[in-house]
């Protein structure tokens, strides 16, 4: 009962919590998403403003350089002196003076601007350098270069950043080849036309402060410029890391590509750059070091350079993560608080119900008095109505209980009753169960029912019972049990599985009667029966042994007979062979012939004995293959035609159709030879006639061997196929043979799946038939 109240309390708490937590959760989720969105928007703005302003500053830097160079080109003294440089009629002295003036003027400018490395004057007709303040040598014409062509078209042009071919000053002021540099060209315009092109070489390293000196509160901000091929134009914030990663040798400029080291692909931000607007990526991506960052990219106006501002993802999202933490903590705390309040509130509500259930629980505890706390009855609410209804119900139950008790007493008198729980432990045993099993109740209760197991039944017997019971069926049967004193008792039992409300088995009730005496009578009868059958079995086994010994004896004898036969045959056939052991006279020869003939007879008898033996033991081997029956019949005919003629008879083969079956052809031939030889023995001299035939029937192939011989009685026919049977001694004397031939025929035919029979009338000939199935 305590269980029920607590689950009720639980449900109440659950409901209160749902009611209070759901709005809290919705509010929290809403606040959470709005705050996170705001925070993200702010991050985007900060990144985009970094790159946007940065790109603008670079644009201004370029503009400043262009204006300065253009200013020098517009200087009147420079214009005048440049004109003289190209005047072919000018004197050597005048030319020297002009070059001196230009040199002086240029030197002043170079000293004035840190970023100005070198100034050159180019012939606008050929594109070749005619004057320079430095060491730059352009062996080829500048024609085709964008900055030069722009200047020819009266505009100020700028080159791409490139690696110098001649040694120039690097970032440390030392001379080196391959230093990144940049050219700006401006037209030198006279009164009439173009006097020359002023080309200035710019120190690219000068751009670094413009790109990097930003006031930003991101500590991991990385600001850099890359050209359209993805090469760095400024230094990196992490030169040491890059050298360690072997991404650069000397500097980032023109060495480092904005690619992810692992994938060798351009970083995501560079891939997605858009010339017209600022691109930003807030989802972390790998930068050129492979570190996850977020960033923004803006193209520098008037160039194809990209200004990239990146911040480590960790730092960028630090604020957002902090916010997440505080929001979850705050809502979690509120949730727990709500839960505590819900528990306290539910307890208060449930207390009266709990008191009622305590009273109900007492019924279970078997206290006959059922009393309800009077305060509940007085309270006049739903609970009190429930309580009084319960009291009425209890009175009815009390009556039923008394009646049940009476039934129980009756059952106890009549039967042996026990109740088992799910695990087959005895939870109830009536007086008669205790008497029969000779155990006390205390010894039985809580024990497994195996305590009375006699060991008489197989485990499978109990498995069957269990199978029936667990499927809800009542089991009825007889069980042999063992009492405490070791004696056995038989019970005729009815076991009923008891189902609970969920239709699951909760216990088993076993109602039995004692049938021990009846069983003892039955067992005594059974025992004497069994003893009889054991004797018969023994006798059978002895018989089998004798039979086996007989078989072995015959097999051994057949084999042993062949061995002495061998020298007899060798000697006799040697004597018969001319000149081998000396020639014999006619009488001697006839004697030897007789020895040879009788050796062959003996050999056949031994062979027949072996065949009969093999058939008997089921050891004869059959080699089944496709057999052309019509050809076999023709062969039989040819083989035996001369033998029949010797006896003055004739043989006819009536086989007219082509027949093929799957069988052992040599064994089939053995049967046919045997039957035909038999027929030859019995046909009358000179008028004898043997007809053989094979034909298809529904049962298989039917073979027949007919003769017009002496025939036989129906008595004889019955015994014909038995071993060692011959018609009579006179026939035996006349025809020889072992009496095994037909038994062997039957054995072979039956082993090949067919049957053999005979039709005959005394004096009118004999017809042998046998059928061999086609498969």
């Amino acid at each position, binding site marked *: 009962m305590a269980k029920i109240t607590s689950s009720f309390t639980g449900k109440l708490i659950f409901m209160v919590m749902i009611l209070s937590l759901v709005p809290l959760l919705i509010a929290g989720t809403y606040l959470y998403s709005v705050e996170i969105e705001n925070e993200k928007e702010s991050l985007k703005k900060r990144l985009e403003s970094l790159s946007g302003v940065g790109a603008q500053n670079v644009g201004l830097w370029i503009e400043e350089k262009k204006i300065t160079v253009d200013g020098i080109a517009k200087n009147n003294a420079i214009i005048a002196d440049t004109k003289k440089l190209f005047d072919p009629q000018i004197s050597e002295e005048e030319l020297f003076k002009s070059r001196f003036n230009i040199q002086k003027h240029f030197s002043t400018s170079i000293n004035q601007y840190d970023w100005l490395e070198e100034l050159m004057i180019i012939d606008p007709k050929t594109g070749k350098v005619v004057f320079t303040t430095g060491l730059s040598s352009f062996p080829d014409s500048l024609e085709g270069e964008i900055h030069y062509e722009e200047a020819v078209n009266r505009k100020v042009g700028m080159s791409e950043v490139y690696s110098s071919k001649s040694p120039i000053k690097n970032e440390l002021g030392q001379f080196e080849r391959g230093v990144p540099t940049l050219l700006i060209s401006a037209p030198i315009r006279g009164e009439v036309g173009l006097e020359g092109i002023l080309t200035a070489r710019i120190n690219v390293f000068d751009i670094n402060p413009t790109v990097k000196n930003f006031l930003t509160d991101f500590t991991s901000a990385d600001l850099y410029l890359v050209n359209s091929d993805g090469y760095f134009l400024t230094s990196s914030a992490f030169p040491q890391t890059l050298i360690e990663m072997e991404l650069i040798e000397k500097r980032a400029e023109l060495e480092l590509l904005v690619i992810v080291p692992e994938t060798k692909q351009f970083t995501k931000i560079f891939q997605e750059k858009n010339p017209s607007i600022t691109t930003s990526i807030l989802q972390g991506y790998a930068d050129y070091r492979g570190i996850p960052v977020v960033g923004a990219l803006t193209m520098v106006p008037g160039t194809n350079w990209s200004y990239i501002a990146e911040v480590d993802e960790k730092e960028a999202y630090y604020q957002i993560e902090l916010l997440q933490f505080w929001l979850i903590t705050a809502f979690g705390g509120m949730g727990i608080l709500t839960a505590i309040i819900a528990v306290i509130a539910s307890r208060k509500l449930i207390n009266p119900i709990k008191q009622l259930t305590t009273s109900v629980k007492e019924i279970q505890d078997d206290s006959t008095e059922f009393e309800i706390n009077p305060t509940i009855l007085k309270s006049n609410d739903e609970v009190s109505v429930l309580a009084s209804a319960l009291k009425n119900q209890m009175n009815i139950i009390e009556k039923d209980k008394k009646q049940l008790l009476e039934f129980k007493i009756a059952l106890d008198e009549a039967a042996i009753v026990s109740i088992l729980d799910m695990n087959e432990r005895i939870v109830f045993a009536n007086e008669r169960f205790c008497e029969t099993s000779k155990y006390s109740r205390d010894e039985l209760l809580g024990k497994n029912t195996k305590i009375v197991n006699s060991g008489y039944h197989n485990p499978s017997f109990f498995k069957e019972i269990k199978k029936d019971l667990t499927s809800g069926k009542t089991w009825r049967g007889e069980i042999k049990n063992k009492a405490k004193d070791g004696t056995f008792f038989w019970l005729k039992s009815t076991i009923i599985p008891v189902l609970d409300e969920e239709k699951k088995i909760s216990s088993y009730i076993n109602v039995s009667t004692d049938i021990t005496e009846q069983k003892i009578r039955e067992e005594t009868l059974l025992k004497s029966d069994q003893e009889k059958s054991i004797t018969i079995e023994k006798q059978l086994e002895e018989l089998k042994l004798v039979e086996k010994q007989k078989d072995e004896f015959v097999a051994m004898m057949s084999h042993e007979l062949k061995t002495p036969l061998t020298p007899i045959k060798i000697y006799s056939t040697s004597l018969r062979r001319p000149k081998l*052991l000396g020639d014999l006279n006619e009488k001697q020869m006839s004697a030897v012939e007789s020895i040879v003939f009788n050796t062959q007879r003996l050999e056949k008898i031994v062979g027949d004995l072996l065949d009969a033996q093999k058939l008997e033991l089921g050891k004869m081997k059959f080699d089944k293959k496709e057999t052309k029956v019509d050809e076999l019949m023709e062969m039989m005919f040819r083989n035996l035609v001369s033998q029949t003629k010797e006896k003055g008879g004739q043989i006819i083969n009536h086989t007219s159709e082509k027949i093929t079956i799957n069988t052992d052809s040599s064994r089939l031939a053995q049967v046919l030879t045997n039957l035909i030889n038999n027929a030859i023995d019995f046909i009358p001299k000179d008028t004898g006639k043997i007809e053989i035939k094979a034909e298809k029937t529904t049962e298989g192939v039917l073979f027949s061997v007919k003769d017009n011989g002496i025939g036989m009685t129906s008595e004889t026919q019955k015994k014909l196929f038995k071993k060692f049977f011959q018609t009579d001694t006179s026939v035996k004397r006349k025809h020889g043979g072992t009496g095994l031939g037909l038994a062997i025929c039957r054995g072979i035919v039956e082993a090949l799946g067919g049957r053999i029979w005979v039709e005959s009338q005394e004096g009118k000939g004999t017809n042998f038939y046998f059928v061999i199935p086609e498969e």
Partner: protein
Amino acid sequence: MKILMVDDDVEITKAVETIITSLGHDFQFTNDPREGLKLIREQDQDMVIMDLSMPEVSGIDIVHDLAKDGKIKEKKIVVLTASAAGDEELKDLVGLGIHSFLKKPVDIDAIINKIEEIESS
């Protein structure tokens, strides 16, 4: 021709010896299968006539032993058997490299035919 016969039955070897020596062949025999195996291994013969069922070491054992080093075919072994064993078993021995087989009781004509067959090959 040099012919060896291995058979545990003294009467059979005696009979075959009488006939084959009178035909003018170089005939040698043993009734001990172990000795037989030794002679086959150590000496050269043009033909070996061998029984199958012999005590301790059977002809089948000898054939299996000789088949191991592949020289069995040169030996021209003709198995002479009274065994009730099936033809299958004899076919297995042919597969292992014996020349052919004759069944006991054998007549002298069959033996002489076999000798002539091997002599002419």
